[in-house]
């Protein structure tokens, strides 16, 4: 997994709540057997019309936001299906961070397992970002993972965010859970010997 430390970038604001993983990547694009290439179909049905022409009013088709590495979305981002393809699609498109005031649980785990940082901020802070970017589409944020804070550049507005400390170590060092769990083989075998339930079944 790629290491993550700090990031300074413009943002792509998507002020919609309850964005589900079927919108992020519709089921009909889940037929691949590899992890690559899902970015092409990120937000497919919001991004393209039925003739596969880009919809002009959708933000990913607005060149003004091109190159941004931070997606900022409304509350309850990533709800619905457990498809990790949603995290892959966002990452593959070029985003490194998703900011929202609330994330669905499975999406959050999937993002963390792919070096895509989900940053949960307060509703007020989120509203502030949406408000400021309206008058300045080149608004930048600095995401500082070590200090667990987001800064709105040029406005001296900073907010701290929470993160599971184990996951933070993984992100900073580029480790994944499997490396860690494989190192625990002895403990797992010990559990299997002593588990009451495994012996009943």
């Amino acid at each position, binding site marked *: 997994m790629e290491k993550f430390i700090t990031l300074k970038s413009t943002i792509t604001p998507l002020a919609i709540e309850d964005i589900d993983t079927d919108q992020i990547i519709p089921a*009909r694009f889940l037929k691949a057997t590899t992890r690559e290439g899902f970015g092409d179909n990120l937000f497919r049905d919001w991004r393209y019309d039925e003739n596969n022409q880009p919809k002009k009013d959708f933000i990913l088709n607005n060149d003004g936001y091109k190159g941004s590495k931070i997606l900022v979305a409304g509350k309850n981002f990533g709800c619905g299906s457990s498809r990790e393809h949603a995290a892959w699609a966002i990452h593959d498109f070029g985003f490194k961070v998703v900011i929202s005031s609330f994330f669905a649980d499975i999406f959050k*785990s999937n993002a963390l397992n792919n070096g895509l940082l989900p940053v949960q901020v307060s509703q007020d802070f989120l509203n502030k970002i949406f408000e400021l970017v309206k008058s300045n589409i080149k608004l930048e944020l600095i995401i500082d993972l070590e200090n667990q804070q987001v800064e709105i550049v040029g406005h001296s507005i900073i907010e701290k965010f929470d993160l599971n400390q184990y996951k933070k170590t993984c992100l900073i060092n580029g480790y994944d859970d*499997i490396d860690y769990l494989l190192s*625990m083989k002895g403990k797992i075998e010990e559990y299997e010997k002593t588990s009451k339930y495994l012996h009943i079944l």
Partner: protein
Amino acid sequence: MGKTLFEKVWNEHVVAEIPGGSNVLYIDKHLIHEVTSPQAFTGLENRGIGLYSTERILATADHNVPTKDQHLPIKEALSRLQVEKLSENCKKFGVTLYGLGHPYQGIVHVIGPELGITLPGMTIVCGDSHTSTHGAFGSIAFGIGTSEVEQVMATQCLMQAKPKTMKIEINGTLGKGVSSKDIILYIISKISAAGGTGYFVEFAGSAIRSLSMEARMTICNMSIEMGARGGMIAPDETTFNYVKGREFAPKGAKFDEAVAYWKTLYSDNNAVFDQVYHYDAADIAPMITYGTNPGMGIKINSNVPKLSEIEESNRATFSKALEYMGFTEGTPLLGKQVNYVFIGSCTNSRIEDLRQVAQFLKGKKKASNVNAYIVPGSKQVEKQAMAEGLDKILAEAGFELREPGCSACLGMNEDKIPKGEYCVSTSNRNFEGRQGPGARTLLASPLTAAAVAVSGKIVDIREFSLN
């Protein structure tokens, strides 16, 4: 302090606690299917390792499969490749596969329980969010992503932060035409599509206790639709009677020993939940959704809410949903013409669902404007339905019983709802485009779906005589 059902099962499975808030959780059963497993198998190959255990994993093909002519090769090339990849991986890694043509094939969350693979007190995971279904047995069951599928394949364990606990208690007697699907749609409409995020839910109370196992599965299945990681119901005599004698369930003295343990799986009287909700069963009516997430549900005879009744931060999403659905705020849904009906999915495709639908349809005819998909959850359900002559009743009413799979719930196969069309569906998600690009889904119970199919429009099931 007493323990909740969730804590009892969770604690039993903790292999180690990791500084920083995560637990290493042992997984008793890992279910896989063709869509979320291929990249995990590739991951194992890249690491040069095999499966930790071939005993605790089971595969089936369900998401992509056609629901007609399953004996023929799958027509759609990418779907066929994905299903073939599953067979290839299962062979290579030594995983038992109930693939197309196997008498046990079916939707992963239907076959686990019906084969006695799902048991009380277990930890069960699958790369599918509706894994919460298995919680109906008092197991901890939840959906995971593909990286986590790989974790479980490699180590039989999962790194997980312990969720908070929530109890939802429903007491009283259900009214006419109200089923377990209506209970869960009602709950989600009350606490919203995000109200359960961060929690594991226990459903309790007399209204839940009175339900059959299949009805309980419908409720736990949709726990994820309120954001909860999973839902569970304490096992009782209904559970033990359901499990007894099933293909892979423990037998004889082993079964008695298991039941003695399962009887300890309940929330202690003095257990403390992080959140508790109480509802009265008498307030629950047949439900239907009007919007684009499962929290946007109403009693079927109510009006779509007005914009002014919606929380301010959610108004943009609400307006976007109504625009997509083609509905107007403050107006009724009753009487709207509906041309598509889907009865199926891991939520409502079990034998009791088909029995209920067939009993209602007996002597009635499908409305001429309606196209209907009735899709059993598994080969076992299909076989049972035929043995009971349900397929004939359906045929006389103008319906065709399809072959098992996820079908139009997510439209990965050719069963899709056309753009702009309304579909009253017994599935679990009404997201934009879920049943096909531009499709408009209204979630409801199997009984309501059957009534819509004969009426050709949205109707209140309570207007019909029911036995």
